[in-house]
């Protein structure tokens, strides 16, 4: 749904009309649910997270800058919340281990682009592949390509230096390519 179409509802929400929030959330319900599911991995947790995201959005609506797309603002809140959830879930195992990252080579030998692997029928497989990635790769990928956040915003949500985001995205894509290629090879 375009930002232009939700402008009247945004105006009414700014005036504090509760029904307007309901309309806005209904518009973005599927977007938020999809993001939460991708970030958290399991459906019940994603449903809980979605409700919490809408609650937080309503509470912090005063901080929303009307010059920015509302969808991105809402999905950023979802990103923040789900990352917090994951951190809490994995307090023992650190999601972003710098040591491990530094050990990995940063130059691949071949472009091996996804386009060679992806056809219309394989989109589901790619989506599932992304969901199966470890959180440290999945989160930046989803925040970048689903929510379309820039590196600085992703870094803020993940509480990482901005410079790390590029390498995390690279590693995530490399891992995804490899897994898709392995899966394709296994089928042959």
């Amino acid at each position: 749904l375009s930002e232009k179409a939700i402008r009247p509802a945004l105006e009414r929400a700014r005036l504090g009309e509760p029904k307007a929030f309901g309309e806005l959330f209904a518009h973005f319900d599927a977007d938020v649910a999809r993001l939460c599911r991708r970030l958290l991995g399991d459906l019940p947790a994603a449903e809980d997270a979605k409700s919490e995201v809408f609650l937080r959005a309503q509470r912090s609506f005063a901080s929303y800058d009307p010059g920015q797309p509302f969808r991105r603002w809402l999905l950023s809140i979802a990103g923040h919340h789900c990352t917090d959830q994951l951190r809490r879930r994995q307090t023992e195992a650190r999601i972003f281990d710098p040591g491990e990252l530094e050990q990995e080579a940063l130059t691949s030998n071949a472009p091996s682009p996804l386009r060679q692997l992806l056809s219309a029928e394989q989109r589901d497989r790619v989506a599932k592949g992304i969901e199966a990635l470890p959180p440290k790769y999945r989160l930046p990928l989803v925040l970048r390509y689903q929510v379309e956040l820039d590196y600085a915003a992703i870094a803020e949500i993940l509480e990482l230096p901005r410079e790390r985001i590029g390498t995390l995205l690279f590693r995530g894509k490399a891992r995804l390519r490899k897994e898709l290629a392995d899966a394709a090879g296994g089928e042959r």
Partner: protein
Amino acid sequence: MSPLPEWKLGAYVDGELSPAEMREVEAELVRSRRARELVLALREEAGLLGDVLQERPRKAMRPAAAEAPARGLALGLPAAVAVVAVLAVVGSFLLEARLPAGIDWLNPLRLLGAYEMLFDLIFLFRDSAPGFFELCVALAATGSLAALAAFVASAVLRRLAGPALLSLALLSIVTAAPPASAVDLRVHESVHLTEGETIEGTLVVSGEFLHVDGVIRGDVFALVEQMTVRGRIEGNLFAVARDLELSGEVDGSVYAGAENLNVDAEIRGNLYTLSDVLTLAPKARVGLDSFHLGERIRIEGEVGRDLIAGGKHMEIRGSVGRDFETWARRAKILSSAQIAGDVVAHVHDESDIEIAEGALVGGETRIEPLDSVRHGRLARYTHAAFYLWLLIRLCAAFALGLLLYALLPGIFSGRISSGNEFFRSLGVGFVVLLVAPIALLIAGLTLVGLPIALIGGAIYLTALYLTGIVVAALIGVSLVRPKSEGLRDFGLALLVGVLILTVATHIPVLGGILRIVVALVGLGLLADRARIAWTASRPEAAQV
């Protein structure tokens, strides 16, 4: 230098690099074909990830086979080139040949019904694909200016240029900005401006008819079936109409294409027409020059300065303030005609022009025989020496292209993959073509700047020569898609490009236009390569 890490190329695709890092990547892209391929793959990959994650529908993918080099092209192209060459020679011959009446239909100059077809086509396009047509008109009108403005703006924004370019940008804005005026846009709407009514500003109309009995204080752009102007247009008139009748006043110039065009108006500027039948009625007056192309042209009114016309039948009864020049199949200057200057007639035979006894010609009358296949410009196509020299030039361009590729491969790394990039190159080329000689001239006026001007002039002329080779390589590479960066694969692509361009630029009339486009695009590509090489060689400047 070691290749850039892939994550940096990914960040470049995502637009997340600092200006200094971006220049580093751009320099690598100039150097390395693999880096370019990787960036393209990563860009597509990013789009695919966005589509999958946002569950957007995606267009059908290009099959992998389309990526493969077109091997059949190497065989098919020479055949196509040969066919085009034969057609060009035969076409040139037919253009000039006096064919027996029975086979006169072969002559491309026989335009009976062509104008009607042309206007049918224009209106068919407008009705069937209005968006496309209007887009084309708008693009044609603003394309070059937009490209120029976009280039200047992007260069200034990227801080690649110093105060000089900024001044140029400001100067362009000051000199090119049209005066602010309202635009009245009437699409799919017929307009009748009645007497006493006034439109302030520009009027754009695309509809069934436009009748102007009132006053328009601005320019008029019209694409209509019927158009009449009995009132007044204070700006210029740009019109395409099936029937166009001008009997009022136009303060500016008139640019008109019409099947039937009747002018009985006072036009203070120039008059340019393309029409099947044109009549400049006895009361009509054109303040400046008058240019016409059509089947039947009749001038009964007054032309203030030169009259230039080409067509099948031409008749002058009125007056011409200066010279009259014609390319008509048959021209008649009747006894009531008054021509203050010279009469120049480009005709096949002296009998094709008839000057009545009472006609007044102030200057001299010159009859210049039209070029024929056997005599004149087109004769070159009948001489073996022409093809020999063409072959020598082709070989020289090919050899020089190979040598340059071996020494400076970066020159050939420019690519045009979209309309935007094409217009951008065209705009940059246009700027370089005009600005460079002026800058060199100014430099040459000073004693200190003279050597710079001489060296710059030599570089400028060399660059102009290289434009053909660069564009030929671009065409060849995009058609043949060389498998590797090796000299052999590039050589095949270059050969294909040079062959195509050589044939295309020698097609009569079209070839000349193509040469200009090639020069502009080539200059644009070369300027872009030079900019990237220069910024890459100044890392300290990039850090600022």
